[in-house]
């Protein structure tokens, strides 16, 4: 029990990213006494990202993009398939994406964005404690049931709360302890992680806008597939910030160890591709960073609540790893739902497992788990059909370049040869099987 000199809050949030800050903001707005503990010197100090999806934030703070440190809106997207010396791109966009609400898709520097978001939470009344590590949870066991009743900060200081919301991200040591202490069930499959590594490359604003065909404030988000990632389950990305580029990739950890490739080697491979090289020409490295991404999807999500505790965001594994690659909005939505559930528990003076299970129910009945469910087969499809990201795009690339190769041969012959080259080495049955499986990715 709390001794007289220890602090007792209505709720404590562990982690100042999109999930934790949204949970804290939601609770503070409802009048709860909330403390948020962030281990970085400032919120965002440990976070890596690029794309921010703003659907949830738009509902919480309409027009947030007017004030938040947004680098550019995403006015254009591209899917680029790379063969060693060829490329094939699908480029699309809409003028509407360059107007409010900007298709809810923004390019940000997370260090700046998270710090801004933390300031909004603080303004709403959240007690923001930065530069403090939560070492462990304080638990109590009675009648065979364990409940979370607070957190232990480095230096053995203890803070108590009715509800603790864990939003400690992909590398979630505190959540792991909670899972063990409360015997929370894991998902149907073990969580599988990707490692993402990227560079922030400085380039003058005008050069970015000229090079990527953008107007002031507009940005491009490019996804890369193919040759630089041969043998890996993963792909690359390039996002244009205001005066810098985010260039990086993410690949399943197991695929990297199997291929014996280090993240930095893969990043260098991507940078060495002629198309990418021209995009980043003259840009200077400002920062190199890395972060994990939970990619197990729907089936890797386990229990997200127990007595006195809820788990949100990456710590719960709520990332959509299809082409949409949404994570920040899922983090915010889960944080919002956890926050709302904590407010209800506060009103009922009951944060038992049964009451906080309401969070899990809301999550399952809402957009986050519905979207994750739609793409539940993505991890398995990518594992079992690696040619989808490697061989097939390369083949189509080759087909196109062969088709448009100018020579003294007749067009009939050129085309026949192109089709023959396309079919050569294409495993027919596997191709058909993979084509059918690919429907799970869309």
């Amino acid at each position, binding site marked *: 029990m709390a001794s007289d000199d220890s602090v007792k809050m209505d709720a404590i949030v562990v982690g100042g990213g999109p999930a934790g800050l949204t949970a804290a903001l939601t609770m503070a707005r409802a009048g709860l006494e909330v403390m948020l503990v962030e281990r970085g010197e400032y919120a965002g*100090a440990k976070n890596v990202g690029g794309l921010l999806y703003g659907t949830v934030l738009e509902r919480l703070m309409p027009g947030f993009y007017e004030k938040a440190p947004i680098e550019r809106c995403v006015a254009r997207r591209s899917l680029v398939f790379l063969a060693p010396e060829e490329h094939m791109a699908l480029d699309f966009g809409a003028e509407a994406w360059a107007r409010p609400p900007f298709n809810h898709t923004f390019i940000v520097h*997370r*260090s700046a964005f998270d710090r801004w978001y933390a300031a909004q939470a603080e303004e709403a009344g959240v007690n923001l404690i930065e*530069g403090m590590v939560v070492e462990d949870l304080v638990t109590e066991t009675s009648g065979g049931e364990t409940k979370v009743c607070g957190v232990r900060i*480095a230096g053995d200081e203890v803070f108590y709360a009715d509800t603790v919301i864990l939003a400690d991200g992909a590398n979630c040591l505190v959540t792991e302890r909670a899972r063990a202490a409360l015997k929370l069930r894991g998902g149907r499959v073990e969580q599988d992680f990707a490692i993402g590594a990227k560079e922030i490359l400085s380039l003058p604003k005008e050069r970015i806008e000229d090079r990527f065909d953008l107007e002031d404030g507009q940005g491009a988000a490019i996804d890369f597939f193919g040759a630089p990632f041969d043998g890996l389950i993963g792909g690359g990305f390039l996002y244009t910030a205001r005066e810098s580029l985010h260039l990086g990739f993410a690949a399943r950890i197991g695929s990297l160890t199997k291929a014996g490739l280090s993240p*930095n080697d893969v990043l260098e491979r991507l940078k060495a591709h002629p198309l990418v090289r021209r995009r980043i020409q003259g840009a200077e490295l400002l920062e*190199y960073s*890395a972060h994990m991404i939970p990619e197990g999807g729907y089936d890797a999500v386990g229990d997200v609540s127990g007595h006195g505790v809820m788990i949100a965001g990456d710590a719960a594994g709520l990332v959509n790893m299809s082409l949409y690659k949404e994570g920040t909005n899922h983090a915010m939505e889960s944080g919002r739902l956890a926050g709302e559930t904590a407010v209800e528990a506060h009103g009922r003076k009951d944060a038992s497992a049964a009451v906080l299970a309401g969070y899990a129910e809301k999550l399952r009945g809402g957009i986050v788990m519905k979207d994750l469910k739609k793409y539940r087969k993505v991890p398995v499809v990518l594992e079992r059909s690696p040619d989808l990201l490697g061989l097939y795009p390369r083949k189509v690339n080759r087909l196109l370049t062969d088709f448009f190769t100018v020579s003294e041969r007749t067009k009939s012959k050129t085309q026949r040869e192109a089709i023959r080259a396309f079919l050569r080495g294409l495993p027919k049955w596997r191709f058909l099987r993979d084509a059918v499986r690919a429907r799970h990715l869309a």
Partner: protein
Amino acid sequence: MTDAPEKMTLADKLYRTKYEPDAAHPHIVVDQAVCATCKDRVCLVVCPAEVYKADPNDPKKVAVSHENCLECGTCRKACPFDGIEWKYPEGGRGVKYRFG
């Protein structure tokens, strides 16, 4: 024609990333008994900051440069023998992204 960009070494890259070092409190400790029998040593491959290297003085050991750690946690997930004891660095210490 394009200029071939100079390829930076990883050490050069890490130099651009900001850290608040804490030399006195290593947040990573490897179990050398495990490392001595480990053949694959995936940590040497998979760490984006090459924190793990074969110890030049004793090839049975793994040398750890914890001050370069980007705190992604990949090594924890990759080590098949749970040979890495990984804690968060002390509050405010470790990597400090200026862009992220």
